[in-house]
């Protein structure tokens, strides 16, 4: 199954590939930087807690399934599963063409769902001590560390579009907009980062 879905890596394009130079130019060393994390694997999982499907998927991810809002099973170094709803999750990892097949096999005929959504959302990484200030310009969620800890993720909005927001580290955040909103999100973030290129007034 894997072979006929493989795409020649020389010809494929990620949604923000043509914006890489602009993102690099807009990044401010030591304050905030922006880049795309291209070609991640993203698998939608549906199963109600308590059922056999939930247990099977939980075992198959290798990191379990998150139980409540904000929770992430695993972390950014490998496979991570984000909580989207009580019975809806997003498993994500660096490119892994085996993951969807393995999860689907684990689910078997139990009532649930495994769908490869890798091309549905792009992934942007905003990094640096000023990253929360950039996000706060248009994200209504509470980003204060007391409410949004490291390795938490929520569904929210940014730049007036729905996104998944995942705090992957102390000063690093991953933003998952729908692929077709990538250009809008990148331009919005570049504009929001511009002020940080100027030294703060003492």
């Amino acid at each position, binding site marked *: 199954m894997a072979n006929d879905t493989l795409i020649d890596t020389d010809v494929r394009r990620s949604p923000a590939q043509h914006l890489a130079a602009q993102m690099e130019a807009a990044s401010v060393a030591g304050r905030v930087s922006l880049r795309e994390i291209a070609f991640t694997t993203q698998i939608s999982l549906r199963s109600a807690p308590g059922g056999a499907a939930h247990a099977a998927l939980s075992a198959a991810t290798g990191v379990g399934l998150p139980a409540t*809002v904000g929770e992430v099973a695993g972390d950014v170094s490998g496979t991570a599963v984000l909580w989207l709803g009580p019975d809806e999750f997003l498993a994500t990892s660096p490119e892994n063409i085996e993951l969807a097949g393995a999860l689907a096999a684990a689910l078997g005929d139990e009532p649930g769902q495994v769908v490869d959504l890798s091309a549905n959302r792009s992934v942007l990484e905003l990094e640096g001590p000023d990253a929360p200030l950039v996000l706060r310009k248009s994200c209504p969620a509470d980003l204060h560390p007391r409410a949004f800890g490291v390795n938490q993720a929520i569904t929210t909005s940014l730049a007036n579009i729905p996104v998944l927001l995942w705090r992957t580290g102390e000063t690093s955040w991953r933003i998952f907009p729908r692929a077709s909103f990538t250009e809008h999100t990148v331009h919005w973030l570049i504009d929001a980062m511009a002020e940080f290129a100027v030294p703060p007034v003492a």
Partner: protein
Amino acid sequence: MMLIDCPNCGPRNENEFKYGGEAHVAYPEDPNALSDKEWSRYLFYRQNKKGIFAERWVHSGGCRKWFNALRDTVTYEFKAVYRAGEARPEIQATEGGTR
């Protein structure tokens, strides 16, 4: 901006939610047995209550789940939220707001 307590996600901005009208309007047991007048009452007639009102809401910008809420239609204050299928909580109207 008002905060609404989603039973799954906790307090979120009101613009993440959509309104679904009055709660606990049961689908008729046997729709074919209804007269046109009874059917129109099921479809279109609602309490439009002044005070505590049981409503359906959906967290469309979050967990995408439907839930029920008791809201004071005078003050807009949410008095309680509860999951779909749960019984309506007993709530007395109170002066002022809690959130």
